[in-house]
């Protein structure tokens, strides 16, 4: 009897509470969308503005109309840029540097990560930590000593390293290898030991274990590392700014910033078109391989 009264006493409040929960959920959802739209506007505004300006003619930019809209879109900026030899050279330099860096980095880091994750040798644990620490040393600390080392190389061997785009292929791996090795160690460590033990029992060499078992199984990780590596080398700004100056040796980011901005005359339509084309390769990769991209991004810290 006492139970029944408690139940009836509690009963009226129950449906009301359920209602309020679902209602508050609905409101939470609405507010979430509202704020997401606001933040999306904030985050996408500069790229949008880039596109709008890139489609404007010089005259339309100079006539102060609504800067957020293009009234007579034209592709002239893009055409001018792509028929210009200079911009194509920047693009070629960037592409060559990035592709070479990706190949070099993946060769070094996949093999090293395999040895650090599975084979172990004296000091391998310390080395793994060291790799991670290297990742924390920023380029802004290294560019001055590296610059000095390059002049030293010229003085002793006569090989000129400064002002050549291919120097960047030697320098960029300092940025990419530590991180790629680090995330590959994480991926390789998550592969069950039984797999490589089985391969070894079947008489596979270490190299075969790596190429036949580890690389196929850890392929998502390798793709993530490759994407990371490409984006970093494509976007790197400080080293090429410090080490290259001639217009034939510049890579894209530096090329756009230093050559398209001439004194006080800013040809903004072309600058924006150039920046948009320069941002295109990472954006395209991102559009198609978003999940790998995000996996690589989160792997660094969550596995660390």
């Amino acid at each position, binding site marked *: 009897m006492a139970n029944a009264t408690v139940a009836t006493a509690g009963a009226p409040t129950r449906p009301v509470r359920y209602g309020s929960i679902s209602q508050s959920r609905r409101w939470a959802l609405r507010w979430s969308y509202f704020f997401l739209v606001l933040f999306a506007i904030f985050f996408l505004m*500069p790229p949008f503005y*880039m596109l709008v300006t890139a489609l404007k003619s010089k005259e339309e930019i100079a006539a102060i109309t609504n800067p957020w809209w293009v009234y007579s879109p034209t592709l002239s900026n893009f055409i001018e840029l792509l028929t210009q030899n200079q911009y194509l050279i920047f693009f070629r330099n960037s592409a060559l540097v990035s592709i070479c860096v990706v190949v070099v980095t993946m060769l070094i880091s996949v093999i090293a990560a395999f040895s650090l994750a599975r084979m172990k040798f004296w000091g391998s644990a310390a080395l793994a930590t060291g790799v991670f620490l290297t990742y924390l040393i920023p380029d*802004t600390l290294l560019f001055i000593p590296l610059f000095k*080392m390059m002049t030293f190389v010229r003085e002793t061997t006569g090989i000129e390293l400064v002002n050549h785009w291919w120097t960047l292929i030697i320098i960029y791996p300092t940025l990419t290898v530590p991180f790629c090795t680090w995330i590959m160690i994480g991926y390789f460590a998550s592969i069950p030991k039984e797999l490589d033990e089985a391969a070894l029992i079947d008489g596979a060499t*270490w190299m075969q274990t790596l190429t036949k078992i580890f690389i196929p199984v850890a392929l998502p990780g390798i793709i993530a590392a490759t994407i990371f590596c490409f984006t970093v080398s494509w976007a790197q*700004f400080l080293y090429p700014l410090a080490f290259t100056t001639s217009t034939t040796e510049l890579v894209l980011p530096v090329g756009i910033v230093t050559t398209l901005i001439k004194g006080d005359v800013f040809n903004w339509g072309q600058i924006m078109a150039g920046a948009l084309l320069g941002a295109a390769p990472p954006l395209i990769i991102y559009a198609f391989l978003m999940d790998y991209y995000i996996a690589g991004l989160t792997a660094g810290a969550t596995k660390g």
Partner: protein
Amino acid sequence: MADIAASNSTVATRAGRNSLHKLVQRKSTVAFLMALPLILLITILVAYPAGYAVWLSMLNKSMVRFVGFGNFEFLFKRETFWEIVAQSCLFALTAVLFKAMIGFVVAHFVNNIPTKGQRKWRGMLLVPWVIPAAMSTLSWLWLFDPSYSAFNWIFAHIGLPKISWLGEAGWARFSVILVNVWAGAPFFLIMYLAALKSVPEQLYEAASIDGATWWQRIWYVTLPMMRNIIAITILFSTIVTFANFDIVRVLTAGGPLTATHVFATWAFKVGIESGDIPLGATVSLFMVPILAVAATFILRDISKRGSEV
């Protein structure tokens, strides 16, 4: 006798070759050889230059005379240097704080909406992180243009005064921080979103059964569960933001005067543009203390996690 000696020596060489062969075949040797390119790269191109920077910082401008801490003394006496220390700290701390907060808030909004739509929103919100910083900063430079600023155009329409975004010290400082937050917040968003997904749903259910408000749920469930990832993301970001170069360089190049210079841009200006390599190295070395602090924290975290496993 000679025969025996000869056969002995062949035996010896065979044994030697065998042991060499065995050494090469040994697992640890193979492993070491496989890691050798990595070791060489790190020693020659990272560890050596890092140490070399310290040596460089103790030379005079023409790099022929050892001056000990002369460069440091010189810097400590200059007012510009202290301005740059203050600006670097202001820049990094404010930017990281706002990145972390925006990332946290937006991650919650994305997590709130139905799973189906999350991918799309996440994809859109990560775009600033994907565009190379030098390129996206160019579009900000154009947004902040003194005569054509698109923000000022909006301000003029709603009756607000024109702002000289990059011309005044205060606004220029605000602008570089704003661009940095814009470019870096998506990283926090992604990390926090991944962390939010890993918080077990039962904890929230238990909390709401206990009558927890949304604030209590965040404070007592979400934050403690995400503590590690928040700490590590903030440490990473602090390192990267302290060492930031691209955004400040493209947006203001340190100007007006030296108002927005941070360590990296000033080191570049002094070391490469003005040709005083030792002084530039000295300036860049001031990024080391913050690096060291962050590294110790991260290392402690790694070793802790290592012992858990």
